């Protein structure tokens, strides 16, 4: 009797150690095929620097060049954090969505999606070494790809002519960079040679820059000197060359349906009252900011 009781007690104390793993299956339902970049947990990170200048940019871009009406312009809000040693450029909407999801997932599985226009890249600029590290999140996947390249490679031609943006008098400069012709407005009153995305090398902060087709327009909408930490998240990054990344991204867009199938995620569209899988033949229009790399 005593032995049986001991066994029972032992087993009882052992039971909590047999952990049950519950698998969460996510399904995504849209009214038309689209790419969505999933949230990521941002609770763990390392601090690279502290910003002394934070510039907010409105990004207006064209993803689908075949559209002719005003809906072809998509929008995002980007943030450029400038520190002494590092700068970081990323989507503020993406950050807010990650932040909300990180908190919500502690108690619910109902989370908002950020929207397809929100950019999935983050650009870290090591100012001393003049090196750029670009991280890219891909649709319907938790993977993050990373490549490095030299910064400050934009060859500017200073132009005459001035403009006023947010009350700052700006000079103009032009450059041909990775397949697009750009016009930049920069202000000498803000003595930083940095700018949005990979643009840098002017004698003042770039407040506005657009390509000649207005398919990519970055325009400053906010300036703050509130110190903020510049962080890099403790994710698993897959290192890749830039060439390989550009080819991979193009492949994803041109084989969008097959790509989604390969991720294993359950993605359907709502069509006349029925749920249908996104067709394998679906292609998404590809209009990257870098046409030549």
């Amino acid at each position, binding site marked *: 009797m005593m032995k049986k009781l001991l066994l029972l007690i032992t087993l009882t104390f052992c039971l909590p150690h047999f952990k049950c793993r519950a698998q969460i299956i996510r399904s995504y*339902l*849209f*009214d*038309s095929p689209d790419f969505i970049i999933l949230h990521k947990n941002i609770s763990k990170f390392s601090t690279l620097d502290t910003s*002394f*200048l934070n510039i*907010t940019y409105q990004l207006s871009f064209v993803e689908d060049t075949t559209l002719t009406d*005003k809906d072809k*312009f998509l929008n995002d809000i980007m943030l450029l954090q400038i520190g*002494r040693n590092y700068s970081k450029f990323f989507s503020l909407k993406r950050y807010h969505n990650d932040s909300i999801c990180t908190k919500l997932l502690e108690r619910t599985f109902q989370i*908002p*999606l950020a*929207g397809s226009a929100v950019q999935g890249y983050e650009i870290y600029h090591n*100012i*001393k070494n003049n090196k750029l590290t670009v991280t890219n999140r891909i649709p319907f996947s938790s993977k993050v790809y990373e490549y490095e390249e030299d910064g400050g490679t934009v060859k*500017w031609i*200073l132009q*005459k002519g001035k403009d006023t943006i*947010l*009350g*700052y008098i700006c*000079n103009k400069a032009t450059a041909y960079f990775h397949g697009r012709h750009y016009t930049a407005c920069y202000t*000498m*009153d*803000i*003595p*930083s*040679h940095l700018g949005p995305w990979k643009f840098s*090398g*002017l*004698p*003042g902060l770039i407040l506005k820059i657009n390509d000649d087709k207005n398919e990519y327009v970055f325009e*400053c*909408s*906010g*300036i*703050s*000197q509130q110190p903020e930490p510049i962080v890099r998240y403790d994710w698993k990054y897959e290192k890749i060359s830039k060439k390989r990344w550009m080819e991979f991204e193009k492949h994803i867009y041109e084989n969008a349906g097959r790509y989604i199938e390969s991720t294993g995620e359950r993605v359907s569209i*709502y*069509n*006349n*009252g029925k749920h249908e899988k996104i067709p394998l033949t679906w292609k998404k229009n590809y209009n990257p900011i870098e046409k030549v790399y």
Partner: protein
Amino acid sequence: MHLLFKIHIRDIPQIVIFLLALFFRTLCFAQSPEKNSRATGNTVIKVTVFTSSPVTVTISSKDEREILCYKSIDSSGQYVFEINRPKLDSLELTMRGFNIKGQKKIIRNTSQSINLRSSEQKLYLRQVVVKAKKITVKKDTINYAVSTFKNKTDYTVKDVMKKMPGIKIYSNGQIYYNGELVKNFYIENLDMLHGNSDIAINNIKADDVADVQVMEHHEPIKMFRKRKDRINGPAINLKLRNSAKGAWGANMLAEAGGTPTAWNGAVTAMYFSKKMQDISFVKTNNTGTDLATELGMGSAVSSGGTAGLRMQSPPDIEKKYYLMNNTNSATANHLFKLNKSKQITFNLSYLNDYQKRTTSDYSRYFVSQDSILEIDESQKVYLNTNNLAANIEYLDNSRKHYIKNSTKCLFKFSGGHGIITQNDNTIDQHLDNNSYEIYNSLYASKNHSKGKGYSSFSSNTSLYSKPVDLTIEPGLYYKLFGFEESCKQFKQNVRISGFKSDNSFSLLTLGVNHLKINLNGKINLNYQRFTSDLTFDKIRSNSIQSRNKIDYWKNEFIIQPYLIYFRQDFLMMLYLSSGYEDIYRRDGIKKGNRRVSLFNFQPYAYTELTTGDKIKISALYQHGTKYDDVETATSGVFFSNYRSLYNYGDYSTGKKRYDKSNLTVQYKDVFRMLFWSAKLNYLHYNNNFTGSSDYYGTLTIYDRKYEDNTSSNINSDIYISKGFQFRNSSISAEYQFGQQKNRYYVSGNRYCRKYDYAFLEICGSISPVPWMDLNIKSNTTSYSNYVNGKRSGKKITTVRNEFKAGIAFSDKTDLNLDLNHFYNKKYDDNKNKFLLSCKMDYKIKNKIFYFTILNILNTKKYEEVLYSGLNYYRHTYDIRSRTFLLGIRFTLF
């Protein structure tokens, strides 16, 4: 960056050249001191920088007009700049950085060495706070970002739209943008509600809407979109947030309280996607919410059409105070998008409305120079209606063709009972009014294959029947109709039915450069039948005057040539409608037929000029002629209510010739959130009859005298609206003034009346602190009457003030206060009247708990005073007693 590299080879010994080359340093913009470069003949400036913080050094022409070279430097050292601008006498050398004091030096354009030493000083920039732009513009679409106008106390998108500069929402559901009526309303670019925007803006949550878009020159027909020869007005489109799309959403509201028993409930469900939309709800309340206006069924219940109960029109105050109702409604609105160009919509609405209205009315009628008629009445009216409306619409809207067909049915089953106490006499009124209307509208248009011109056809057809039975007890006016003994009741029944078909088709379209010439044809057919009968104690009166049986045909055959001239910013249209109108009237009681055939010329001219994207000036002139409808083509009498009798007597075709002109100037500056418009309208009538009234006891008899008569109306409307980033504030003002002139007969004497009026309204909204939202509206109306050139009575001025405050005590708790103040020195007892309500809500997760008090001050009565120059009216309305409501709103899914 400039890098100039020039070598001049001189004829000197090679060893010297070699030694010189060893020690020559290349100074180049964007090179560190360690790199060598060759520069000869250029201005070489060696700048030795002493700094502990990153700096930017630039060399430019004077006043920094042209940047010549620059360098970002993060450590002390010597840096060389090379300039090749020999024509410049002087250069500007600047050093800037975030943590140093900026330095600027004017130097001569000669090679030299300069030291720059930085001193610590933090650079403070002019902060630009990150704010979403409240209003943005893309071509002719103005985008209002809802989140920038929304406060914590706003719930529906209508609450937020009221604060958007340039947009004004009236209580009848109409939306105006910069003084122009918005005729088309979309949700995600789809038209599900066919202009009935109240269903959307009253029910869609502000949190679900990203932007309210105003499309200024909206052309709903895609095949006409690139044409410059069309007049297009503004349209509104709601852009929803992604979270509000692609899934069904439903919420429920339930409120209950007293006194007496009060309730308000609603279950609302919505769905929005690219291919399907739905807004459906079931609502019920007895707390004064007018569901009829929301469903587009008109405002509340009317007392019949041609004949009805005598009751006062509603007062001009919020319905929650005076509308004693028991209303239930349900609506289902559904849109299916079949493909890119085709869609089908279904709208079904039902309304069951019971209303009680209690008023005291004093009316003073001018009978003659030495006689007036005073009537003191107290009225209790009970109205009940069941309305059923259904609409199905098919739309095919592509770039090549356009087809739209909509079929609507409206069935009304109404009744009412009114008790009037007049000078100790009690008059009982009973009304039965069941009607139906079936309406079909077809419009089709197609581009010609060669791309020039188009063909179009439209047909609007309706069939309707409006029978009314009005019973009055006791049987008043029996002597007028040949009865010798008094009667207990008299009954007026009126039957109006008809068929109408307006058809239009294009015959010719020609275009040469900026000139287009079109020719349209129109055929309008209109048949109406009017029958009426009067019985006393169920016995038909022998008087031939007591009956009507009129068949009335009014047909038009019109040719409409029109010219359009257009340039980039200028448009001119000239329509020259000419036609033949045939009016045939057959009188089945007096056995008389009359046919009138007339030639009708109705020109219309419109011109529009836009200067840049801020100013638009437009002008129009229109001339036309209107003829009687069947209600004024009667030869017998009929009662419109118990003390109003229409007696048009010997019939003659009533004709109204009108001239209408308008000049409008509109200005908008979206960047500054400033909108204003000014309109001047003139309307002149030339009639062949003058209205007349006579009195028989308390009975007013309306008649006509056939003679030439002119009347006119001139008015101006000035509107201005401005939004500010400061404290999320906005202000708008509207000023209207005008004058009306007409002529009228009273008891056989002719009077010329002039009516001057002015209306001023100022509205403002501000959030003085982030947790408070204030809205103030103040308007004053004043008018004066003149009869035969002399002022009649005193000027009447009414002032109304409305004050609303929303206070968010925390993220969970809000309080909304609503105070109305009215002033009119003609009021009997108290010149000032106040109406006050409040609502408190408390949020927990996705539930909101409400506590509402209507009419906190328990105001009993509201007065209105009107004076027409000849007649004076004072109406006193019962107000809902103080009512408490406890409620909850929550999301079902």
